[in-house]
Structure formats: structure tokens, C-alpha cells
């Protein structure tokens, strides 16, 4: 997987929804730190968590995460 970069737009969509990291974390059942590290590209979430985040924010997973080749 070298040479592939994950672009995360979670912060933008969360802010647009008017949610804090703690709000979103509470809604999807994870810790605030996990939302923080996902937004900063430190932690890559599982497919299930990515789908939960997308569903809660009313967007597709592709709008939250994209691969930059």
C-alpha cells in the first residue's frame, strides 16, 4: 500500500453538521480521541465505523474518505 495516501474529509463534514468531536463520538459509540485521530489521519477506521460515521453525517463513505494515488 505504499504510495497511497488517505484523504480524510471528516472534520469538514462534522463541522458542516454543527457537531463537536465529542458529539460525533457519542453518536457513533467511540471515544472523542478516536474521532480526533481519524480526522488527523493518524488512525484509519474500520469499514463498519466508516459506514457509521457516514450514516450519521448523511454523506457517503467516499465523501469522508478518498485515496490519493
Amino acid at each position, binding site marked *: 500500500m505504499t504510495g497511497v495516501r488517505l484523504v480524510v474529509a471528516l472534520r469538514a463534514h462534522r463541522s458542516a453538521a454543527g457537531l463537536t468531536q465529542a458529539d460525533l463520538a457519542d453518536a457513533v459509540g*467511540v471515544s*472523542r480521541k478516536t474521532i480526533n485521530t481519524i480526522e488527523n489521519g493518524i488512525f484509519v477506521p474500520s469499514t463498519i465505523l466508516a459506514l457509521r460515521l457516514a450514516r450519521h453525517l448523511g454523506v457517503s463513505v467516499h465523501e469522508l474518505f478518498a485515496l490519493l494515488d
Partner: protein
Amino acid sequence: MTRNPVNLIRLFGNAALVLVVSAAMAAALLHRQDVWTGWPWLIGAVALGYAALSVWAHLRYPRAAEAAWDEQNAVAHQASLAFGYWAVMAVFLGLFGLVLAGLTDPAAAFFLIAPVLAIAPSLHFLWSVLRGRAE
């Protein structure tokens, strides 16, 4: 800092375990034969107290427990257990070599490996928290 009660108990429980085992080791090295015999009881009390508090918090705050064991924290926890395993293996092999070479008494080697077994996973988890990779 986290306000999740399960996270807080895990953080302070791990820290307390590291502190009390380190203090016991320091006392054992300083006092040799005159070491206080209550150390094992104190370590056991801290460990059991941490376990009891943790069980209580998981039952009392199920939603907080779910967040405390989310996938990032689970990854950090698994990494801490793996680190503990390899730390014990490394120390065991080192002490085994010292025993074979006649530089260490087997009983002392057995005594020395216990604290590594006890606190290596906790130390690694605390390091993950400090690095912002767990809560």
C-alpha cells in the same frame, strides 16, 4: 483529559500498578534482605482494586465502556499485550543467559521477571495514551 469513567479508571489503574511495582522493585534493590514483606500484598491490593473498580465501571456505565473499548483503544490494548509478551520473552532470555553463565541466582531471576510481566503491558498502554493513540 478524558471524562469517560472507564477510561479514567483504566488510566489511573495502570499508572498505580506501574508505580507500586516500580516502588517495590526500588525498595527491593535498596534494602536487599530487609525489604518490607507487605509489598506483594500492596501490589495485589492495587491490582485487585483496579480490577474491581473496572468491573463496577463497566456495569455502571455501559455506554462509556463501549466507547472506552472502541477500535482504536482495542488496537492500543492489543499492542500493549504484544509488547508485554515480547518484553517478558526478552527479559527471560537475558536472565536465562545470566543464570547459565552463573552470574545470577535462578531465584533472583524468577523474582526479577515478575515485575516485567506485571507492568510491561500497562507501561505500553500508558505510552499510547501519552502519544494520543488511546484514552
